[in-house]
């Protein structure tokens, strides 16, 4: 029994460039979200976060 290869669209160089640009944009957005979560966490905890028994 042989499996047929699914029909695939071959990307043109322009489509590869656009995909790469989109990937970079998604990576930057995710990085920004990490920083945002960090900043919001610190802001919500406030200075009292350091005032605890060790």
């Amino acid at each position: 029994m042989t499996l047929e290869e699914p029909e695939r669209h071959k990307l043109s160089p322009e489509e590869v460039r656009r995909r790469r640009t989109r990937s970079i944009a998604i990576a930057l957005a995710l990085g920004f979200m990490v920083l945002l979560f960090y900043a919001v966490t610190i802001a919500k905890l406030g200075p009292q976060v350091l005032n605890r028994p060790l």
Partner: protein
Amino acid sequence: MPLTADLTAGAAPRATLAAGPARPSTGEVRDYVELLKPRVMSLVVFTALVGMLVTPSGTHPVIAASSLLMIAIGAGASGCLNMWWDADIDAVMTRTVGRPIPAGKIRAEEALAFGLFLSCASVLLLGIIANWLAAGLLAFTIVFYVVVYSMGLKRATPQNIVIGGAAGALPPVVGQAAVTGTVHLDSLVLFAIIFMWTPPHFWALALVKAGDYRQAGVPMLPNVAGPDATRLQILLYTLVLVPLGLVPTWLGFGGLAYTVVATLGGLAMIALAVKVYRRRAGREADRAAMELFAFSILYLFLLFAALLAEHGLGLWRNVPGLSL
């Protein structure tokens, strides 16, 4: 991939795509940004920021700025879903034919997924960052704009932009809820100002672009009630809007600068609305309508800029004898 528009009576108003093998996304990053209607987003950020500032809250600036970002993303998401739903009429209107979906740059289902993801993310994150009242108001704004306005009212009634204008007027309320945890009269007054500003603003444009709207099958007031009835409605709404613009002075959160701007700007709005009402034919009529359309943007901008300067930069000065 070409977009086909189905404008037959009763057809589901939705973009369809030519059949063929599944293709990868071909959109540029800027096409996705365009889906978010960045100019509308900037107006939303501006008005929501004023809503945050008019009532002192002592909120941490990082929380306030992050909340503002989520409100902006929520507004962008609703714009994206609006473009998904309206892709068929965008394809036949000169003003909107270059948008990413009708231009074939982004597939309709991609825009739907993008808009839904951003809607859910912005609401959930606003709830976590600020509070769930603000998140609920943002969710209501998105649903109202997409489901009530875009899917329901826009193609059904000439009162579409009157009722639908509530979605565009809510950002100051959401902004205030994000930093105070409640809704005050101040932000409701700002809501009322934007709500009453919307009809004369859009109907002035609709007078000039009536042909476009007729071609797209959108029942704007000039196409249904006629241009003269629209001119009367523009004048009446403006006569309500201008005194409403002075309510912040009466309530005390509009200071001297705001009062001057609201008075002079309001008089100019009335003068332009009277001009639109009186000039009813030819290029003069179109010019008067476009003048009102352009000035209405400046008027709203100046009102909110004055409040921003007074409350954000500490320029508020009392107006003796006018405030409560």
